[in-house]
């Protein structure tokens, strides 16, 4: 039997709880997830989180200052390259394996955690006992709260052609390619002898060590091995490059420089531009300067291809040689083959959405700022285009090794009567004054852009091609014979037709063509309404355009009957 004296206070407490709960509900703040801070210049710091093993972390990740530790060991009197094996294990051949911790542990939570703690904290404790300044031993001093939302992201260290050239020219290396390059012979019974080197087969590390990419039948077994051994591009490059640099540093004399061992010296985040790389000698693999790409039993004439000039447009060979350094037709046959991932040779060269095909790469160039203004509206010609123009195909399929000579375009030949200097658009004036735009100046600018690009000059053979950018359905030769210019309104209707929804009306034809080009070319001018046409002092209403009435025959479809009064 509950006493009266308890009930009332209990009920009052309950009601107070209710009110507090209501207060919480009425002041629920918008919960914003903590913002991730990305350190793009980590300066040799490493984030130790191992979320693949631990999942959601109980304590914040540890930010480990590698440089500090290496310098601390140097201070103790060791040389820089001798400090590595203080923490990192070595293999049978005395090469460093850049794993941590030293002891190999099972990839599960407790063993990994204990291994880290054992190695790190014991070393710290040791140094403290020796009377030196040391690192933390308490949990929160390593697992700092501030580092909870930090993400350490190292910029990719690019081993570009300039670096390669430096290594090639390094007299100490004596042009011994086998120092870095090797392939894997799966059939060799002795496992330790499976890495072999054969001159003339040097290729990029990425072909075998990029474990995330799906490879063809030749590379797939090798990639399986590298993946199993954990030899990702990251691990392989560290093992290969750092060990060599450490070795050199050991043997180097006092003033001689060796390759860097510090993180931020390779992961600089600074990359050379394509034009800078173009000046550097490319790796030599006996590649031809010019070649005729001729396929046996093909329907089209061969294509004259200038390999050396194309080399200068890419950062790496892998832009085109995506699987191996062989020629495209060696894997991609006329019909699809497994080596070519069932892509036939026509598709390999002409696929407009691939990064590796000729048409695809040209398509990527066409989507750059200077070109996109016209080209975003022009459907690329590919093997599915019906009735492509003969001249278009013949531009490449010449049958000769030598390229057709190219001539820059010029406005000199234009008839000033026909090609107006300034054009006034006033067909739809309602709220705005007529729009005047500098027709000839635009043509001149487009011609300059075209002439500045070798690719553009090669394909823009006539001035009419430039005109086609805006006058997209006119036949230039026919237009040249007419008295009136190719007005947009000749094709684009003023009135709205709800039955033909994909036929652009005149108002939007103007705006989408002009604004589309300005947007794709990322121009500063011409993005605001008033820059093209000024507002009228007394504009008519937006909605009084007479032409925008639905034709009666269509209205009847909607069940409309005419309003008589």
């Amino acid at each position, binding site marked *: 039997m509950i006493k009266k004296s308890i009930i009332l206070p209990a009920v009052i407490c309950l009601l107070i709880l209710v009110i507090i709960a209501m207060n919480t509900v009425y002041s629920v703040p918008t919960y914003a997830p903590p913002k991730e801070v990305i350190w793009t210049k980590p300066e040799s710091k490493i984030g130790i989180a191992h979320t693949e093993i631990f999942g959601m972390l109980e304590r914040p990740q540890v930010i480990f200052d590698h440089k500090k530790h290496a310098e601390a060991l140097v201070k103790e009197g060791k040389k820089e390259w001798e400090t590595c094996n203080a923490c990192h294990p070595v293999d049978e051949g005395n090469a460093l394996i850049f794993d941590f911790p030293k002891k190999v542990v099972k990839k599960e939570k407790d063993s990994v955690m204990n291994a880290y703690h054992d190695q790190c904290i014991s070393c710290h404790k040791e140094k403290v006992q020796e009377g030196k300044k040391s690192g933390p031993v308490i949990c929160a001093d390593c697992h700092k709260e501030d580092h909870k939302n930090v993400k350490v992201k190292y910029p990719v260290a690019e081993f570009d052609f300039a670096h390669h050239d430096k290594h090639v020219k390094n007299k100490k290396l004596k042009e011994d390619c086998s120092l870095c390059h090797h392939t894997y012979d799966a059939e060799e019974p002795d496992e330790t002898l499976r890495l072999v080197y054969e001159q003339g087969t040097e290729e990029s590390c990425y072909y075998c060590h990029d474990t995330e990419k799906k490879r063809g039948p030749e590379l797939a077994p090798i990639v399986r091995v590298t993946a199993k051994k954990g030899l990702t591009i990251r691990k392989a490059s560290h093992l290969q490059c750092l060990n060599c640099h450490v070795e050199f540093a050991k043997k180097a004399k006092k003033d001689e420089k060796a390759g860097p061992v510090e993180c931020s010296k390779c992961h600089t985040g600074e990359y050379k531009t394509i034009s800078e790389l173009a000046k550097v000698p490319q790796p030599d693999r006996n590649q031809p300067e010019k070649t005729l790409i001729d396929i046996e039993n093909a329907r089209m004439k061969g294509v004259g291809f200038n390999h050396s000039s194309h080399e200068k447009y890419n950062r790496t060979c892998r832009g085109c040689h995506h699987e191996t350094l062989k020629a495209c037709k060696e894997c991609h046959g006329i019909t699809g083959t497994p080596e070519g991932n069932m892509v036939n040779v026509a598709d390999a060269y002409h696929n407009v959405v691939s990064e590796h095909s000729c048409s695809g790469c040209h398509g990527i160039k066409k989507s750059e700022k200077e070109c996109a203004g016209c080209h975003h509206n022009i459907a690329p010609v590919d093997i599915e285009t019906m009735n492509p123009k003969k001249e278009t195909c013949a531009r490449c399929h010449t049958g000769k090794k030598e390229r057709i000579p190219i001539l820059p375009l010029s406005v000199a030949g234009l008839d000033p009567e026909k090609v107006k200097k300034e054009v006034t658009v006033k067909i739809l004036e309602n709220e705005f004054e007529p729009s005047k735009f500098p027709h000839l100046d635009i043509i001149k600018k487009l011609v300059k852009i075209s002439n500045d690009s070798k690719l553009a000059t090669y394909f823009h053979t006539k001035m009419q091609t430039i005109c086609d950018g805006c006058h997209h359905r006119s036949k230039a030769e026919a237009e040249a014979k007419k008295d009136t210019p190719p007005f947009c309104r000749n094709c684009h209707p003023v009135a709205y037709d709800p039955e033909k*929804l994909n036929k652009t009306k005149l108002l939007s034809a103007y705006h989408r063509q002009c604004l589309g080009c300005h947007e794709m070319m990322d121009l500063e001018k011409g993005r605001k309404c008033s820059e093209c046409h000024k507002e009228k002092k007394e504009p008519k209403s937006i*909605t009084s355009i007479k032409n925008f*009435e639905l034709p009666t025959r269509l209205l009847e479809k*909607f*069940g409309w009957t005419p309003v008589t009064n």
Partner: protein
Amino acid sequence: MDRRTFLKTIGVGLAGAAGGTLLTPHPSKAQVVFDGMEFSGILVDTTRCIGCRRCEKACAEVNNLPVPNISETANEAVFKKMRKTTDIQYTVTNLYETEKGNFFVPWRCMHCNQPGCRSACLVYAMQKRTTGHVTWDTNCMGCRLCMLSCPFDIPKFEYQEAIPRIQKCNLCFGRFNKGKVPGCVEACPTEALMFGTRRKLLEEGKRRIAQNPGKYVHHIYGEYEVGGTSHLYLSAVPFQQIGLRTDLGAVAYPVYSLVYLTAIPFIATLTPLFMLGIARAVRMRKEREEKEEKGKEEKEKHK
């Protein structure tokens, strides 16, 4: 009870159930064509919208609402905040910043195939016309259930007026009856807004998606959302990123109240019978008990 009573009870129960079934309202399926007339709608291509707000100005002019200032300086300030439609603005355009760039998205009534607002209206002041327009009429009581029932929160109430109305886009029903396109469609300089039959708009939208595979998300928003709407959107980025809710489901909102509405006739016919039955049973038991009591008393007397 005896067999006759039992059969009578069952018979009455079945009659009640039959009556309930007959009286149940049948959900009207979203018909796109009524007697040869089709729903009209608007297709919004958000990749074409340049944020000029001429649609807002035209809408205000057509509907006698305060005309907004759409000069460039005014627009710059306006796009800093996300706006919703109000009782004086039937359509607003908002700026969304996404990883594929900035997109302007015009907002207005979606003119659903089966509108929640129309189904909620107890006087059918909100009507779905045979031509697809969802319009408001002045027999409205101002109960505002339509505001609660719209998944897009479109109907707006004129709280400040002494004679308040529910305000929302009506797809320019008046202009339509005079043979004109909606004001916003007329004013749009890039044909980001297109007017036509819903069928043709869906075809056009699908054509654009097919012919520009990398450009659009492969879905027209409004094709099945909430049972289909007549106001359709094309987008280059996932629809949540331009403020369109993707968690509304494909079920038309009126279907949710069908659970209740279909139960009404059954309750109306069966519960009175049920209660009569109970009342009768209770009364009979009481009479029986009274008889027994009287019988006992009589026995006592005779003793």
